[in-house]
């Protein structure tokens, strides 16, 4: 039922409420569309001026003779229904309603009217009360958020506006590549499930991140999320985790079935990775979008300090991953480079004296060994080595072997450590400032692997 192809690949896009005033949302969105490099038709709609930013304006969408698939609606709320009618008559397929002042302030009727009119013309509605959307494969940034979104493979759906815009900026800072950003706002029509159906099929997306306050049709979400999760990981930040789930206590089950418990169960059942914080979600996005899927769950930890190793092992254990003895041939190889007192159990302790070359050789050997499924590298900044040097050594090993199995790196220290993390991030090697975060992000991949197998098994049984 949901065909959002034209939303993400429009033949032409009109901005209703395009303004010359640089402080107006209608101006900023048009500017982003133009400057981010959208190459197809861009049509400002504004009856009171002849041109905006050097583009000819139109008094109404129906006066544009070229094909327009999407209208961005940035005008006062009461004028929206009329604009929808005009766009609908002109054959527009999707209305992206930026305007606010609908259900979020109690104007339910006005919102329903917008959807009703859109439906009459077979048009879908994104929003209202949103900051717009991005689809990098066609260089489309129709938001009033930051312009220079990094193209990549992560789709981000957000129900929160302000936090969503802010996180758009965070993706740039964190070096996270984006395929799409979709502000869903009031979800009057298009919702998470519709978008997941699209991203499931979208070859440009390999991970989906959702900031969710709630869904209206939980069963449909479970169905659609179960399907996409077999192919691509879906990470959710669910807001309102502490809300008490009180409901009429006529039944025991009812008194226990709080909102939070049900969402968590739904996520688990559909293989969705639930996170507690933005930081955790972004950490997971990095491993899940930059690393390949691990073939198994045998993790080897390589460290230059016992403390960092213990912190990482404990974190992994909390996530249900228990370290086993590394394969013998790997141990033999590493033994050649290490001093006799180095511990060759798991974590492999290269000792505090480990130079960059030891990192290079041990990481390379771990990446090459078929008895190891994922590699966690920990480095504590010592006086003997430079963090950037170690980062280069790790990146060199990855480069030489190729990206064949998951890797996660912790560079622990001060400003130089931060530089080293940035270096790895630029190379799309997940790197973090603490052993716990690096371990937990790697564990997310192993968890997803289990979820995925579970979903596939369920489907096999069903068919």
């Amino acid at each position, binding site marked *: 039922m949901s065909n959002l192809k034209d939303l993400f690949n429009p033949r032409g896009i009109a901005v209703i409420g395009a303004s010359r005033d640089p402080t107006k949302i209608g101006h900023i969105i048009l500017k982003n569309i133009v400057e981010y490099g959208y190459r197809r038709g861009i049509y400002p709609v504004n009856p009171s001026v002849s041109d905006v930013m050097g583009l000819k304006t139109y008094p109404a969408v129906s006066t544009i003779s070229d094909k327009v698939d999407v209208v961005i609606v940035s005008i006062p709320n009461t004028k929206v229904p009329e604009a929808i009618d005009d766009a609908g008559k002109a054959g527009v397929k999707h209305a992206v309603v930026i305007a606010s002042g609908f259900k979020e302030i109690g104007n339910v009727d006005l919102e329903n009217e917008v959807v009703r009119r859109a439906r009459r013309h077979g048009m879908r509605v994104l929003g209202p009360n949103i900051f717009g959307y991005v689809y990098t494969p066609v260089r489309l940034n129709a938001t009033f958020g930051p312009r220079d979104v990094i193209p990549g493979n992560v789709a981000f759906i957000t129900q929160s506006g302000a936090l969503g815009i802010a996180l758009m900026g965070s993706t740039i800072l964190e070096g996270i590549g984006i395929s799409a950003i979709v502000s869903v706002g009031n979800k009057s029509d298009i919702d998470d499930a519709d978008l997941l159906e699209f991203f499931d099929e979208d070859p440009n997306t390999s991970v989906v991140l959702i900031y969710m306050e709630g869904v209206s049709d939980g*069963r449909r979400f*479970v169905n659609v999320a179960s399907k996409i999760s077999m192919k691509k990981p879906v990470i959710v930040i669910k807001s309102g985790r502490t809300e008490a789930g009180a409901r009429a206590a006529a039944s025991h*089950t009812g008194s*226990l*079935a709080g909102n939070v418990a*049900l969402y968590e*169960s739904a996520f*688990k*059942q559909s293989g969705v990775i639930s996170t507690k914080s933005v930081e955790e979600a972004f950490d997971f996005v990095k491993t899940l979008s930059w690393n390949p899927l691990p073939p198994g769950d045998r993790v080897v930890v390589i460290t230059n300090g016992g403390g960092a190793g213990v912190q990482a092992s404990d974190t992994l254990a909390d996530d249900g991953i228990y370290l086993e003895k590394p394969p013998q041939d790997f141990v033999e190889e590493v033994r050649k480079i290490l001093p006799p007192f180095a511990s060759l159990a798991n974590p492999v302790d290269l000792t505090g004296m480990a130079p960059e070359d030891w990192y290079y050789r041990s990481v390379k050997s771990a990446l090459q060994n078929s008895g190891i499924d994922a590699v966690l590298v920990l480095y504590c900044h010592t006086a003997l080595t430079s963090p950037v040097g170690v980062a280069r050594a790790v990146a060199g090993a990855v480069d030489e072997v190729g990206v064949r199995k998951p890797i996660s790196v912790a560079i622990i220290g001060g400003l130089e450590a931060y530089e080293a993390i940035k270096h790895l991030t630029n190379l799309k090697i997940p790197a973090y400032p603490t052993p716990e975060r690096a371990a937990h992000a790697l564990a997310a991949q192993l968890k997803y692997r289990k979820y995925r197998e579970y979903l596939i098994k369920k489907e096999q049984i069903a068919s």
Partner: protein
Amino acid sequence: MREAREIVEKAKLEGRRKLLEHESMRLCELYGLPVAKYGLATSEKEAVAIAREIGFPVVLKVVSPDISHKTDVGGVVLGINSVGEVSDAYKTIVANVAARAPGSRISGILVQKMVERDIEVIVGGIRDRVFGPVVMFGLGGVFVEVLKDVSFRIAPLTELDVEEMIREIKGYKILEGYRGSQPRDIEALKNLILKLASIISDIEEIEAIDLNPVILYPRGIGALIIDARTILGE
């Protein structure tokens, strides 16, 4: 499932939001769920006949649309071992209810097999506004009351989902057998949860259903529902 529908329609017609205990039990039976043997008596003679048929010991409980806490009004007599005791208990319950809950309608007296106690679990279902039919599982008593050690799944369920939800609770080790206690009949439990999911999925009027307690016996012996409570939506 014509009979199941009839039970629900009857309650609706009578303006009841709760099924009577024997109706809930019957609903479970119709869906193939294992319930402790029971019968509804509307006379002392009938109570004796039912007790004879299902075998001693039995329990007698008042069934009334007006009474929700049966023990508070002296509406329950446990550990009945003879025909004479059945007659006595029947009279006692009727007298107690008349004294402590005057004017309450009595639909009958439930005569139920008093079964051997063992590990108790709770299996429930609710119809959620967002997720629709949802099922719950947990260990009974303190585990559910205090620790809230329960798991949920959205229906429809696969057998794999049910396995996961059983294993998910913290007290799962108790079901696996510990300190020499025997492992429990997980297969029977799985079956029970799946069938409860069908009830809540099939019958749209049901807002909540509690099977509490369900006695879960050692592997191969099965499970028995002791008490079932069904709430219909407004």
